[in-house]
């Protein structure tokens, strides 16, 4: 089902973990396509392979077999150097445990991907200020993560996810693994909304792993996984 129109194209991917003698088949022949600007959700019971799939798309891990294409390029065949470039230019993560750098302020955390991407100072400042405003944290720019609430930290993480060097052929892919899993319901809903809206306005593509059926319902597509395979698409 190869199609170069898709931004992300996962084709018949398997991932087997070997721990000593035991091998765990976390993914068994998963295929999935995502077009640019789309917002999709992945659901499924614990251990069904959602995180594993996300890691493969995010170039954090390599599949045992099958291919993952991003912008038409097969990232499973890339060397480490090119992978670094893909991560730098196209991929952003939002984790369950916010994963901000504790030594940096909110501003600096958002700025970090732009620094890594080598964006020039003025453009950088403009973009960071803009993103902080979007997540409503302009006031908190100088605060460090341990001075922010969980919801605020996750907002910073969202702003950071959207802070990517622009002007590339395609926009950013935001991969969010249970981004609200560690927040209370209300804050979780808020965060989810911010994530969805912003990704949309910034022209990004969003893949969210969630346990919350309501969140799943709001997305354009919902994939359900079980035992390492996609069992349902709606």
């Amino acid at each position, binding site marked *: 089902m190869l199609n170069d129109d898709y931004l992300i194209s996962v084709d018949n991917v398997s991932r087997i973990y070997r*721990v000593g003698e035991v091998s765990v088949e976390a993914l068994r022949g998963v295929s999935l396509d995502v077009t640019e600007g789309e917002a999709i959700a992945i659901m499924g019971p614990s*251990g069904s392979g959602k*995180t*594993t799939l996300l*890691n493969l798309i*995010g170039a*954090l*891990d390599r599949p045992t077999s099958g291919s993952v294409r991003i912008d038409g390029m097969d990232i499973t065949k890339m060397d*480490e*150097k090119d992978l*670094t*470039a*893909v*991560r*730098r*230019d196209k*991929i*952003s*993560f939002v*984790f369950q*445990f*916010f*994963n*901000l*750098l*504790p*030594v*940096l302020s909110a501003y*600096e955390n958002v700025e*970090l*991907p732009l*620094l*890594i*991407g080598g964006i020039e100072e003025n453009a950088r400042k403009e973009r960071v200020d803009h993103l902080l405003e979007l997540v409503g944290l302009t006031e908190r720019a100088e605060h460090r*993560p*341990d001075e922010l609430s*969980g919801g605020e930290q996750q907002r910073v993480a969202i702003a950071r996810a959207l802070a990517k060097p622009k002007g590339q052929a395609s926009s950013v892919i935001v991969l969010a*693994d249970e981004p609200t899993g*560690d927040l209370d319901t209300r804050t979780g809903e808020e965060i989810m909304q911010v994530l969805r809206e912003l990704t949309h306005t910034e022209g990004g593509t969003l893949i969210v792993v969630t346990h919350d059926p309501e969140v799943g319902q709001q997305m354009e597509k919902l994939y359900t996984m079980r035992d390492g395979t996609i069992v349902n698409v709606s």
Partner: protein
Amino acid sequence: MTALQVGYETFGGSRRKAVTLICLMLSSSLAAAITVYVDSYSMHKWDELVEIGPVAMEIGGAGVEHIADGVAEIDGVTDIAIFAAAEGSVTAIGTGGQPITWSASVFRYDQTLMTHFGNVFVLNKGAFPSATDEIALSAEIAQETDIDIGDLVNYTRGEPGIGGSYVMTVVGLWEFSGNSGSFHYGWQIAMVTGSMLDPRTDDSYLWIDVDRSRVSAFNVQGSLDYLLQIEESIRELDPTYDPDRDTGSRYWVNDGLRSGITNYASWQQGKRVAQLFRAGGPILLVVLTLFLAVRHNMNERRYESNILISRGADENKVRNMVYKEIMILAALSTIVGLGLGALLSRVGVMSSDYFVFRWELFVNEPFLISIESLALSAVAGILVPFGAILAYDYVYRIRQTAEESTGKLAKLTRLLGFVKWDVLLVSLTGIALIAMLATGTALQLNPLLRFFSNMILSLAPFALFLGMASLFIKALRAGANRISNRMEGIFGSIPSSVGIRRIGRAASSAGPVAMVLVLTISLAWSSAVIGDSLPLTKMNQARFTFGGDIRFDLDALNSFADANATEFVQNCTLHEAYVAGAELSITERMLSTGYYDAADLVAMDPSDYLAVGYDYTGQPLNESPLSSMLMELETSPMGAIISQDIAEEYELSVGDSLRSYGTEGGNVSVFTFTIIGIYEALTNALLSDTSGNIWGYYGAGFGLRTVWVNRGYLSQFVNFTTESRNMYAMRVADSSNTTEVALDILEAAGYQSTDGDDSANNDYADVDSEVRSYIGTTDYTMDRAVDTMLTIATTLVIFGAISVYAAEGLNSRRREIALMRAMGAGKRLIVKTQATELLVLTLSSIMLLLVFAPLLIVTTGLSQQTSYIIYPIRFFFSVPYGTLSLVLGFFLVSVTLFVVAVSSLATRIQLSQSLNASWSEGGPMGGDG
């Protein structure tokens, strides 16, 4: 989350345990290294003090000969014989032809005694007496006379004049073998057959030997108990003996073996305490590291214990669980530490100077771990960690109560916080040190003050260090952000923001690590400098004291050898190593008529002596400020160079005249000089060693109350041969050994040196043997050996500290690396970030090092005791730059290795795993403390 994290936690647990074990091992191995080293070294002393010959004990008391059978049955007694002695005197003709009488103890020659304890005596010549008119004399007596075998002597029984007198033939000359005479009180001068003893003063003693395999240096206390038990059993042979009722036994025991062991034990204890005391710095290091280790344990287990507490476990219970684990690890580490310490002690045993090894000693020297060492290491290995736990607990609780409560204690703590103990400590010790250094020699004059000032000198740096450490950590915490902003231009914005700020965040572990590094390097540097400086100090002081490389006492040589002074001096000039020589005649004169205020007038030929002597700084005279004064003394014969103290006391300055008074046969003579120079201190060339003694005259300061005058001028008034002490000072070629030259010259002059034991002879002194005998002293050797061991041990502490630091931040470091790579940071950027962190930490450590190390070196140097004589310069610093850079290099290499290790971590890291784990730091369970 996933099953994986459980595995990860166990791995983390074992890493934590390994790190803790390393840190805990340090204290027991440090203690073991020192005590085992002292033990092993003391084996020589054991041999010397416990080898008392074949007789272990002597038993006396009325009728003691009747309990011989009883004594023989006592457990441990292996040999017994009766020994009889009485008073007597021997008269013989001395070497001068006059009769000499010795009155002392005379004892009976007895065949059974000889078969049991014959080894006590060594027959130098002839035989033991076998007839009533035969006598064997102590070789000691024979030496003072010319008595030989076959000569006749007069023997009187009992006290002189009371007993009968007999003419006896000398048949043998004997002496006690080795130390074996020491057990018996009194002095034995002769041996006669039984019937010749004085019956009125005749006394019997029992000599016994015991099973000596039951005494050992390993178990000193056990050995003493064993011997005491035997002594007690002997006393109990008197039926009236009852210590409870205070009735003594009629038998007394003179236990030579036990007193040997007691002497050994107190010698060993003294050395042990002295060396442990010297290890103050390293002990501080170990405590610091242990504190880090405990803290690390508490932090690592916080996540775990928070879960347990949230499930209802008692907080104290959780803490006790952590402590219990540490104590179990401590017990385990004691065993490993003991082994490591024992190995380290061998390094001490084979070092003859600071990092100078004689490898063969590693196996050849005796090895001993005594029970006390085992106990001490165990105590150090378990108690010290326990102390660290208590300290941690204390700090932790104080913090908590201060935060939570508003009571009295909180007020007090806040007050203490306000006072800023570290600022206080640094300023107070700083002031004390400066004051002490400024007072200089004044404190040195009083032995008690001297002791205390040395104590302060050796402890103050560490007090200062603790204060500085605390300030340093605060500075790191506060300064990291500022430094990071400054450094952006140099390192790039990511390395400086992420890398440098991490230091600030981890300041509570980065700080102590920096402190450990600084302290370790400072200690190693200081040991190296001291090891290099002590011989230099001795050399400079000896040169100054002796007034040249070699100094002969012409008067003493004249009376021993029949050489005349002129001939002897000529002999000296002929030696191939001769460079220059000068005669010095020293006369004691008064500087005022009123009271006793003598000064030494040293008469010299100034131009001669200019090429020979040294000043108090160890500089050759011709390169020192004294050279122009001496040149002037040459041309103005009435001139005098005086020591500073004289100038001060009499308010004299250059150009003034100096009068000196002397009384010879009732006539007062006055010599007048014109002062042409004043110098800090001048030698009088009278001393033949530089160690002095505690209450010696030169405790007031050597080189004072001395006047240098022109020989030509003074000879008009003084007959040097009869009224002065005459010395000949000599300069020899640089490459030559002064001792060899001196002995060569003496030999050529027909002088017999008494088997190289030159310290006892005052007739000559030379710089090399002075330095050599100083370096050869037990204390010097032990100090350097222990310094070597401590340097190695403290270097191990570096690894302990670094591993805590690495382990401490490992989780957050991994996450940080993974996160940056997930954002697309390249490996180079990541390595650069990690390296920047270490670089800044290293640089700030080095800055601290440059402040602290000189301080430690100076105070350690000044607290060295090289002599009881007070010299104007008590310590000459010599800096072995090679060694110092080696030490620094070693440290930099270890830091670099750490960076390399971290870099490889950056490449090996499993991104997906590192990012999805639940990090206690970022998670709800809170950050590090």
